[in-house]
């Protein structure tokens, strides 16, 4: 039925797709994986990033640049969001469980509906020289947009990995997840650190959003499917591991790509969610989790 080289092609494309999934999940991997904030609004902010990129790129700026330009804006949004979350829930420790979740779910929902009100339900696209054409290597053709995504993914992952291992704040962020007390001993204020981390997580989302709209058209309700993809990757990776996130992304990407070619695309949405359920059922601590 399905030829080997087609399968091989599926895997190749799956790798590109996988890096892309990893990149869109990095922010969540920090916010949820490291800080343990029930950040279900992450995919919504991802889409928001795409739409901002869409607006900016109308001025003729290249979408990637747009993404980079948006990062500081999103950094601030992230800080504000965490501040608010901290003041209203974490500090009062009024069960962050239900209210925190409901809060972020509500935020995600509001973002989505507002996008619909402003842009309508039609898909939006950006144009750039590297969109719509592809790199030919012998039999195979690789869309440049996917290669771009691949590049961004690798860039972001290495950047964050380095940041978390090399810098003081980076290590502090890694620590805050495990033990706030120890962090206080290190002479760092956990809330400040978390705030910083959350800012970074959201800033990363801006570039990821730009990448999302480069890879394909976006529409407001798209965050829903990405709840599955991002959380699947983060859980698969084991909370808070950046390199793990990349690997997990690859697993998801290849799995989806192969399913699309064999079972057919109509089963694609179930892949990420299915994988997620499976993980939660058999190994919630993730592949690389403690």
């Amino acid at each position, binding site marked *: 039925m399905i030829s080997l080289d087609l399968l091989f092609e599926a895997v190749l494309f799956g790798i590109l797709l996988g890096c892309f999934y990893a990149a869109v999940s990095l922010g969540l991997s920090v916010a949820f994986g490291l800080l343990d904030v029930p950040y279900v609004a992450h995919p919504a902010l991802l889409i928001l990033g795409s739409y901002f990129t869409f607006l900016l790129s109308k001025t003729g700026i290249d979408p990637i640049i747009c993404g980079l330009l948006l990062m500081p804006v999103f950094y601030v949004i992230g800080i504000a969001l965490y501040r608010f979350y901290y003041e209203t829930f974490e500090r009062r420790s009024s069960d962050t469980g239900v209210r925190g979740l*409901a809060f972020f*779910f509500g935020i995600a929902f509001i973002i989505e509906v507002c996008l619909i009100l402003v842009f309508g339900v039609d898909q939006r696209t950006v144009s750039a020289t590297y969109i719509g054409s592809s790199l030919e290597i012998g039999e195979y053709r690789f869309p440049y947009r996917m290669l771009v995504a691949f590049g961004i993914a690798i860039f972001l992952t290495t950047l964050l990995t380095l940041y978390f291992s090399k810098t003081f704040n980076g290590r502090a962020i890694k620590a805050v997840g495990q033990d706030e007390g120890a962090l206080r001993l290190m002479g760092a204020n956990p809330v400040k650190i978390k705030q910083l981390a959350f800012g970074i997580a959201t800033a990363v989302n801006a570039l990821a959003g730009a990448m999302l709209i480069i890879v394909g058209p976006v529409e407001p309700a798209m965050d*829903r499917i990405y709840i599955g993809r991002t959380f699947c990757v983060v859980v698969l990776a084991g909370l808070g591991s950046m390199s793990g996130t990349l690997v997990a992304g690859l697993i998801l990407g290849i799995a989806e790509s192969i399913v699309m070619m064999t079972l057919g695309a109509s089963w694609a*949405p*179930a892949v990420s969610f299915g994988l997620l359920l499976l993980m939660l059922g058999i190994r919630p601590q993730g592949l690389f989790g403690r």
Partner: protein
Amino acid sequence: MKYSIYAFIALLGFLGLSLMNVNEYIFFAGFVILQFVVLATAWNILGGYAGYVNFGVPAFIAVGAYTAVVLFKSISAPLVVQIIGGGILAGLLGLTVGLLTLKLRGIFFSIATVAVVFILETVVMNWRYVGGATGLQLTRPQDLWIFDTYTRMLFFVMAVLAIGSVSIARYIQDSFLGRGLRAVRDSEEAAECSGVPTLKIKLIACTISGALMGIAGAPMPMYLSYIEPTATFNLNYSISALGMPIIGGTSHWIGPVIGALLLATIQQVVTVTVSNELNVLVVGVLLVLFVVLAPDGILGLIKKWKQSSK
């Protein structure tokens, strides 16, 4: 005892109304509102009492609805059987999801419920027997019992279901189960160490809650005489079913009822007036506002007001 009398009176009231010679529109709008009463109440049994947030409400509704469709199409089962069947399967779904994730922290359960929505939707999309993506038209049987129109009957059925599920929620609240669930919400460890079999009661709550949502969904195909995945698996159900209890107040069984009656009515009015996405935005915004400003919902506000007026 007082409650059961009120419940009975309400039941008679609904029966009378659906037999009375009044404007048919009431029953179409009323059906939807009462359906949300069931959904909100069901959600609150797990989300409000135990603090486990279910985002996957449409999955349970859909299981109810599509079970009904299958039962109707295969053995042309009567409405009652459809509802019971839908309830049972949705309950089983709740149990399965629970077994899979209720050992874990709340957010994993929540994400899992979202996953169930998409997986089931994909399955239904690829399942031709129930119409797949194209949907399925159903011709209602003409057994109207004592009612003039099928909708009047459905309205009364939904009223019964609403009163039933509220009674269940109320019973749970006052029972050991309710006490245990509250303990779980406040501190799972302390609950365990006070002898509460946390996992067991969470599973019970999850199953009951799921079953009630299924029951709420089961009459949908007959109400629309048509079923189609995109509307059935619409995540807007989640935001409503979660928003209504939180806005009404999750601590007491009356909370979800208030929230549902209020918001569902607003939604019905909005649909036939200024209607557009604002309709769903209302719930979203109110939800966030309440979560932030009035964590204990309308009930909490009333309590505060009473205390201050004393």
